[in-house]
């Protein structure tokens, strides 16, 4: 973990490969608990806003051009997709030819990576809801190139509207028992108040359009979506957290966590923490490659439950993990918030993780 408070950024030039996976396996023993987090962290009552802490869920809607509506699957089909990794027609439809580079919307002014003024806010120790885990695939079945960076394919691009469509967010895998859960922003699974569930979500770990192989370990189609009612009903950004349960998929037709590893998740900590953030902002290389930003997130306001950091990550970075105790060797950390918003000053904000987020994660885990 970069302990400096200076905010820096870089982009990934290479993708994580076999050596990093091996390194991750080797170092997993040291990761049984995030360093510095007392195992018996005493959760203190969170500052709760948003009175409806329950979540809602829906099967991930699927519709291809030419379909009259959303596809309805029989239980037998769903069971078959478990073997095939999703609806073959959906997976086949979205080819690279259907993509032309979506040119980014650049936020006004390329913000300096400024050092946030630390505020005297709670710096509580976070409690652990999920521990990071390395990928379970044996190195012998991987053929990714030797990595030279610490960028992690535990993070990826979440296409909305099918693979390589012009709408997207960012997401990462969380180590839950089902090994199938991604965490992202609520607005990446549902429009919010007055809106609908989003369609045709496809997660691509370590997506990189600058390589000949855009999807280094394949794709994972969404099976189930989940977010807070407070987001669905009121577009409350304090509850802008979403979960996506995925089919088995990828190049080895395995679960997402067994393929790319899974971050942990911590909650009830302070709103100020050192963080490493990953995502696909459209104002950085057109969202074609993973970027990271790291530094100290600070408390946004006594008026809400958010942290903030000036990364100037624009559209498409939503849902990307704000990891805590990120480990360069393993590419794993613990998610403590997710990217939610950006403003014209380049300030990004993310919601506070309390018990309700853990409950939502556990509900998502039970969606499979």
């Amino acid at each position, binding site marked *: 973990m970069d302990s400096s408070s200076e905010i820096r950024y870089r982009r990934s030039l290479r993708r994580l490969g076999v050596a990093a996976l091996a390194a991750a396996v080797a170092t997993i023993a040291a990761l049984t608990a995030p360093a510095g987090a007392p195992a018996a962290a005493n959760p203190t*009552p969170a*500052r*709760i*806003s*948003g*009175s*409806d*802490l329950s979540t*809602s*869920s*829906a099967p991930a*809607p699927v*519709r291809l051009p030419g379909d*009259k509506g*959303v596809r309805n699957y029989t239980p037998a089909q769903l069971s078959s997709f478990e073997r095939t990794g999703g609806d073959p027609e959906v997976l086949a439809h979205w080819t690279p030819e259907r993509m*032309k*580079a*979506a*040119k*980014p*919307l650049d936020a*006004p*002014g390329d913000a300096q990576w400024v050092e946030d003024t630390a505020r005297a806010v709670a710096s509580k120790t976070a409690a652990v809801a999920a521990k990071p885990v390395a990928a379970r695939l044996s190195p012998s079945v991987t053929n990714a190139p030797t990595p030279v960076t610490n960028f992690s394919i535990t993070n990826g691009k979440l296409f*909305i*509207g099918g693979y390589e469509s*012009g*709408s*997207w*967010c960012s997401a990462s895998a969380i180590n839950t028992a089902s090994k199938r859960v991604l965490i992202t*922003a609520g*607005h990446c699974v*549902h*429009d919010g*108040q007055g809106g*609908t*569930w989003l369609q045709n979500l496809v997660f691509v770990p370590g997506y990189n359009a600058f390589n000949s192989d855009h999807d280094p370990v394949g794709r994972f189609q969404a099976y189930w979506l989940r977010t807070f*009612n*407070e987001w*669905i*009903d*009121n577009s*409350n*950004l*304090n509850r802008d957290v979403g979960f996506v349960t995925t089919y088995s998929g990828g190049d080895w037709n395995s679960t997402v966590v067994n393929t790319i590893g899974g971050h942990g998740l911590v909650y009830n900590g302070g709103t100020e923490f050192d963080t490493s953030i990953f995502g696909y*902002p459209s104002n950085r290389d057109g*969202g074609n490659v993973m970027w990271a930003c790291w530094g100290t997130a600070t408390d946004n306001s*006594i*008026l809400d439950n958010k942290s903030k950091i000036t990364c100037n*990550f624009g*559209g*498409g*970075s*939503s849902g990307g993990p704000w990891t805590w105790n990120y480990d360069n060797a393993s590419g794993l950390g613990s998610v403590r918030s997710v*990217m*939610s*918003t*950006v*403003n*014209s000053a380049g300030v*990004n904000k993310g919601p506070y993780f309390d018990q309700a987020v853990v409950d939502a994660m556990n509900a998502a885990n039970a969606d499979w």
Partner: protein
Amino acid sequence: MRVRPPLPLAACLLAVVAALSACGSAAEPGGDTSGVPAPTGPTRPGVLPTRSDLVGAQVVQWRDWRSVDDRTIEVTVTAGPADCYGAEPEVTESETAVRVRIRVGLLPEAADKDCPAIAKESVVPVRLTSALGDRKVEPLS
């Protein structure tokens, strides 16, 4: 599933003691509103409002276009949410081609707003001075 737990209220009341303002968002109306996930169905890309007073507008590469009627085409771009961002199209027409450039920028009323950082495929309506006919549609460079 939609039953409101008593805890938030208690926490809110406690928070009043420490910081009155902490209850601000908890008191947002609509907490009682129940709802189910909205029915899903066919969707179209949203329409970006066309404006000439955008903040920090920049040229974006458009992906695709389609004819809406004789004198209107819709051009597809990736931008942020339509309640934060707008588009300003620029068109030059010749006998053989229609050339289109799209600028996207923040709506003035969203300049100080926190906007969801999603990348959304959206369409921008572009009016032509004469019927499109057989003319090509291409980027204006």
